[in-house]
């Protein structure tokens, strides 16, 4: 098979210093799709919802309920937009990557479109945003002193110092696991699909496409829920000092 699977996203061109990769291009498309559908849905809000408004209402109501159950109504207001945006962006990206044309349409002998999350740049940036916001919220809800206490125990008992050290490492691990989980799943999906399609392009890839639809949803949900849970845990009063 000639078009080998590469880890790096293909650079289509440069805008000043910014390399326009195919994944960046697709993420702009995803943003535009989300923006247009949401504006269309809420342009004329009605008490009795019509199709598109009903669709968004259903999703948002369910998600908000979930966030509220986990975070409580006060923090849910702050957390909800962020985790929901993660979910919507990731699921749109994942499902868009399954559309025909991805990887097959070429531009200067490079694929013009590529599933966003099969580029580690994208998933790593999402994970970094998730981690940064988590820590910002922790400081906001706990205060800076309480926030530091989590990592640097004031008691000189060595075990606690070591635990604090482990906690710092676990925070770094979170970023790595969040980004690589999403990247790995989607990239593997792409590889499987292109391999199966190159073996026999008709009918046989269908079950794999179906599987990828589920994976796309599950990964989006996992990213959203993990971010939410990290935010909730870190912004909660530490209970070990009772």
């Amino acid at each position, binding site marked *: 098979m000639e078009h080998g699977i590469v880890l790096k996203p293909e650079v289509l061109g440069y805008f000043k210093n910014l390399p326009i990769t195919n994944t*960046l291009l697709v993420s*702009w498309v995803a943003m535009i799709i*989300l*923006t247009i559908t949401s504006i269309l*849905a809420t342009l004329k809000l009605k*008490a009795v919802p019509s199709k598109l*408004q009903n669709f968004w209402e259903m999703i*948002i109501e369910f998600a908000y309920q979930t966030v509220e159950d986990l975070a409580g109504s006060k923090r849910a207001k702050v957390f909800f937009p962020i985790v929901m945006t993660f979910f919507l962006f990731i699921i749109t990206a994942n499902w868009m990557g399954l559309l025909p044309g991805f990887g097959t349409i070429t531009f200067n002998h490079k694929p013009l479109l590529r599933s966003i999350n099969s580029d*580690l*740049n994208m998933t790593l940036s999402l994970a970094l945003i998730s981690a940064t916001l988590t820590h910002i919220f922790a400081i906001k809800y706990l205060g800076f002193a309480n926030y530091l206490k989590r990592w640097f125990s004031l008691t000189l008992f060595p075990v606690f110092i070591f635990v604090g050290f482990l906690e710092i490492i676990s925070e770094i691990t979170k970023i790595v696991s969040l980004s690589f989980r999403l990247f790995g799943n989607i990239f593997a999906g792409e590889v499987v699909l292109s391999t199966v399609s190159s073996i026999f392009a008709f009918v046989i890839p269908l079950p794999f496409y179906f599987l990828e639809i589920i994976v796309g949803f599950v990964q989006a949900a996992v990213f959203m829920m993990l971010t939410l849970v990290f935010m909730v845990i870190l912004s909660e009063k530490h209970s070990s000092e009772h």
Partner: protein
Amino acid sequence: MDILNQFGINPILLAAQVVNFLILLFILKKFLYGPILKLLNERKKRIEDSLKNAEEIERKLLLTEEEKEKILAKTALEAQKLMDETKKEIEIMKEEGKAQAEQLASQIIKKGEETARAEMERSRQELMSHMAEIVGLGIERVTGKAFRGKGQKEVIEKEVKNLS
């Protein structure tokens, strides 16, 4: 970092994606979550209000029903009382009527009796005067003398009275 290079990590791309995400976050917050959550809250409040209203209405209905029952019971009681009173009055009126009728009857009887007695007296008087005349005529026949004048009649009447 060789591994990062292998995966094609580029700080500029990372930054671009972060900016993308923040823009998307802002747009969705403004155009999707804000309006729809507001709408959902409003709808929830409206449904709650409606439910509360429905409860209120039901409560009022129940109250009205009770009031109705009470009024009906009271009315029935009053009607019963009124009926009893009327019955009693009718009874009294009957009694009174009876007494009055009896009185009237006895009065009529008395009057009748009196009339009869007066009639009898009158007939007797008349009879007597007739008799006196007849007796006078008889005496006239027997004695052949006319027994006339003022004194004649008086004498005869006296005699007749004595006779009787």
